[in-house]
């Protein structure tokens, strides 16, 4: 079904049109992606190297585990230390390895604590069902696309009264982060809007950014043709001086999004101000469980004070990478001191981190 979305001849035709549009525009234009999967497509297929010189693609804060605050990871680890015999903590594979000044979940595992990597929050739930005498906590990062599964699973736990299943929510909303960058003055001519976040929040979840900040957007799919076409659509808008939001990923994204998922998220969570590692506090950018469901949030149950810790090691430029100010190759640590085997900062740990993606695909970043 998707072979056309990788067709070489179609890609060539689109590229030809991209070159024509870019030439007519003349000046440099900068587009940003804010999704690890988009960055993966762009770098894996060498899209930056194929584009005209005046079309630049920046990578934004599209990596939820990269921006998960150090203090939350440390607080989760402190809670687990108090309940060594009684508690199992689950999280995703990349979160498991994220470094903090106090170590990582992987370090705790090697010290004998019960930490498990899961592919889905559903796996954590199943672990909770099998271990009723233990508390099973899913340390739960992710944008809207991951918040929906968390809401779904939690809903079932609440309905079935599975009280030993808990979460630690570090879920975040994507549009407020883009808004934050725009307010901070990151210069953008267009946004390659994340298609999978959009399956949940719909086209309408992004409209205000175009309306209030005059940024053209194209909601994009993840095949190389999707991304090329989205770049072409943005260039066309710029050349015609149109500021709109368009949907390239019509096969998955509806105007209103997934209303079933939205309902569950809204029922369980409230939107709060929240910290993003290496970026700071962003207004109304975090999902916190509502008070009436507060018993399912582990950080409500254990009162653990955590001092403020440095977000990054000295020299790590992950913060500038996340803001789209530099590409990884501009960091002196990249590929020398900092590699996926020995990551210094979070952007090199996650599969969605821009640094790891650049490292993995070598010279294709153009």
């Amino acid at each position, binding site marked *: 079904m998707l072979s056309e979305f990788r067709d070489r001849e179609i890609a060539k*035709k689109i590229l030809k049109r991209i070159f024509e549009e870019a030439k007519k525009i003349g000046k440099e234009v900068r587009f940003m992606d804010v999704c690890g999967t988009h960055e993966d497509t762009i770098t894996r297929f060498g899209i930056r190297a194929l584009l005209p010189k005046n079309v630049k693609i920046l990578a934004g804060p599209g990596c*939820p585990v990269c921006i998960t605050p150090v203090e939350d990871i440390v607080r989760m680890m402190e809670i687990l230390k108090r309940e060594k015999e009684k508690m199992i903590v689950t999280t995703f594979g990349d979160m498991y390895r994220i470094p903090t000044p106090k170590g990582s979940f992987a370090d705790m595992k090697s010290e004998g604590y019960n930490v498990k990597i899961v592919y889905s929050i559903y*796996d954590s739930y199943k672990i909770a069902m099998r271990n009723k005498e233990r508390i099973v906590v899913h340390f739960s990062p992710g*944008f809207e696309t991951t918040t929906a599964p968390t809401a779904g699973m939690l809903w079932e736990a609440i309905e079935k009264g599975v009280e030993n299943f808990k979460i630690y929510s570090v879920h975040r909303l994507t549009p407020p982060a883009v808004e934050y960058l725009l307010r901070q003055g990151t210069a953008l001519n267009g946004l390659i809007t994340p298609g999978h976040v959009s*399956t949940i929040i719909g086209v309408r979840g992004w409209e205000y950014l175009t309306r209030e900040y005059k940024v053209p957007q194209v909601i994009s799919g993840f095949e190389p043709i999707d991304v090329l076409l989205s770049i072409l659509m943005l260039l066309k808008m710029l050349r015609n001086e149109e500021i709109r939001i368009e949907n390239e990923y019509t*096969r998955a994204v509806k105007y209103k999004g997934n209303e079933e998922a939205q309902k569950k998220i809204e029922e369980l969570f409230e939107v709060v101000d929240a910290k993003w590692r290496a970026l700071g506090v962003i207004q109304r950018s975090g999902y916190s469980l509502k008070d009436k469901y507060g018993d399912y949030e582990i950080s409500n149950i254990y009162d653990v004070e955590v001092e403020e810790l440095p977000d990054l090691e000295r020299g790590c430029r992950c913060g500038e990478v996340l803001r789209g100010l530099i590409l990884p190759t501009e960091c002196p640590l990249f590929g020398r001191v900092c590699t996926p085997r020995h990551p210094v900062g979070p952007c090199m740990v996650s599969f969605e981190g821009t640094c790891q993606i650049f490292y993995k695909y070598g010279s294709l970043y153009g």
Partner: protein
Amino acid sequence: MCLAIPGKVVEIRDNLAIVDYGGVRREARIDFIRDLKVGDYVIVHTGFAIEKMDEEAAKRSIEAWDELLSLDDLDSMGD
């Protein structure tokens, strides 16, 4: 953790589907998808189907590019 992938539904049991990703089969929760049928394509993210893949829309967009790109070819011949 955020990579979402499309697959084909081969079996449905209550709120679970068995999804085939080009030969590899895995369970996916389908809590948020209405009217799902065997043979439908879904996009699965961390074990949950987040949306159905609309085959008609995919075909329509491919036809739309063909049209767009062939018209543009005619344009550029006149340049």
